[in-house]
């Protein structure tokens, strides 16, 4: 449904999008994640024909973004990041106006329906300027849903909503995603995990991860990150011991009796580590795998500097001491 290849966007000299490519299939809900300034909004603005790309190709529903921008705007529903609304109109007037621009038949029925969907029916005759932030957010969503768009592009749709509304909006998105294609950006990682079929992580204008949520989940709970707890406080000694065990790629001291290590997926270093530690005279209290959360993956992938330089000098084997 959405096809993006080698997309580049420059703002003056600054490159905001640096050669990204992805495809989104019909009926997929895709979460667009990335730190501030990664280029999420920019990408969405290009997809919705608000901004032209500097280079690269974008197609939505078979239409090219440059040649058929009007067709694309017909099939796309878009909720911008800073929900733009005419504060001097009432909620109902505003939606009727947008419905008019989208040439919707029996607009009044549809507007009433959409108001129901975002639970704003009671505010239909109120002025937009008097709505709360969350209500505006929902009105922005309502506007995007008016024409039952084949493709829904939502820039941080749940920001500023109360918990009950967040759940409702998420359910709504999931419901819509059954038939329509949805691309949403968010900073709430569990939300992406809950709602989306697939996750795209973008950093500094480049895609650093593109995987299905399901696969991510199994990857996240993979057996390669292990926590180890000993009796006593000689954790540094134990750490250097663990670090020299074959198969261990990374050691991280968490507390003075607790460390975490990573081993390559190919060989399970756990039995060897356990034996080594016990043979060295330590009392092994606990050894268990810890799942890496999406947060950690996200931070890992979008970290500014790869690692502090002194730990980078010995590649493959890092002993890192976190000051807590």
């Amino acid at each position, binding site marked *: 449904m959405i096809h993006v290849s080698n997309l580049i966007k420059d703002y003056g000299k600054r490159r905001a999008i640096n050669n990204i490519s992805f495809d989104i299939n019909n009926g997929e809900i895709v979460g667009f994640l990335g730190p501030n300034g990664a280029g999420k909004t920019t990408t969405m603005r290009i997809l919705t024909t608000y901004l032209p790309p500097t280079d690269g190709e974008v197609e939505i529903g078979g239409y090219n973004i440059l040649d058929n921008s009007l067709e694309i705007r017909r099939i796309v529903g878009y909720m911008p990041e800073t929900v733009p609304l005419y504060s001097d109109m009432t909620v109902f007037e505003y939606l009727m*106006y947008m419905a008019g*621009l989208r040439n919707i038949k029996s607009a009044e029925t549809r507007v009433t329906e959409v108001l129901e969907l975002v639970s704003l029916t009671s505010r239909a005759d109120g002025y937009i300027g008097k709505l709360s932030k969350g209500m505006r957010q929902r009105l922005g969503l309502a506007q995007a849903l008016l024409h039952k768009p084949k493709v829904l592009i939502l820039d941080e749709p749940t920001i500023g909503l109360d918990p009950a509304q967040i759940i409702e909006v998420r359910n709504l998105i999931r419901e819509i995603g059954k038939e329509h294609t949805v691309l949403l950006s968010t900073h709430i990682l569990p939300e992406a995990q809950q709602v989306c079929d697939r996750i795209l992580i973008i950093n500094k204008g480049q895609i650093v991860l593109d995987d299905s949520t399901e696969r991510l989940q199994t990857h996240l709970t993979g057996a390669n990150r292990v926590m180890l707890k000993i009796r006593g406080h000689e954790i540094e000694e134990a750490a250097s011991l663990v670090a020299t065990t074959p198969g261990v790629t990374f050691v991280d001291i968490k507390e003075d009796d607790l460390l975490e290590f990573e081993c390559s997926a190919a060989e399970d270093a756990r039995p060897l580590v356990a034996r080594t530690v016990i043979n060295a005279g330590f009392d092994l209290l606990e050894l268990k795998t810890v799942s890496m959360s999406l947060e950690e993956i996200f931070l890992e992938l979008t970290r500014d500097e790869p690692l502090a330089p002194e730990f980078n000098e010995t590649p493959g084997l890092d002993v890192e001491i976190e000051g807590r």
Partner: protein
Amino acid sequence: MRNIWLIARREYHHYFISPIAYAVAFAILLILGIIFYANIVGAMLQQIAPGMEIVFGPLVSLLIFTTPAITMRSIAEENKMGTLELLLTAPVRDWEIILGKWLGGFLFLGTVLLATWLYPIVLNQLVSPGIEQGVLVSGYLGIVMMSAAIIAIGVATSSLFGNQIAAFFATEGILLLLWVIGAPSQAMGMMGGSLLRYLDMSEHFYPTFYRGIVEVQDIIYFLSLTFLALFIGKISIEVRRWR
């Protein structure tokens, strides 16, 4: 066409809740009224019958000085509020946006002009054979034509500048320039002089519409000015997409 009308209607309604638009309408009608009254009193003392020029003269100047305040917000405000993002991602063509914005402003100014009919009606009662119908019609025709061009220039400038204040001063500058550009024509040679005189807005109003004469070339002048400005406005929206 539907979109133009929708945008124009919203724009028109917006003027009626905008304090600046009210202030402009009020200022036009009030200043016009004061000048009208002063002229009537003066004419009575001198025992001469005043004509429609006591309305048209000040009205034209007022239009030039105040309409930029009406049009300055038309696109600049949408740009600032972010609603332009909404408009530009809706299936609406760029020229529909410009034309709708123009029509809304034009209809609003038309409403104000309609209110100025009060003065000819009063004048008609005051002078004994009544006012010259020809001058009344041609004068208003000229003023409507000029309003169309002024609003178009204002809308185009508003889309060129992201900022309302900048749009106001730029529009004012363009209008004043167009108003006096013919003045140095005497000092110039034949060719340059007549070109400048042709560009001058006042040259297409005072010698003709103002005196009860309707010339096709004046109508063409104002229509071309309107189209040119609207075209520039459309290009400016297109360029906005390409930035």
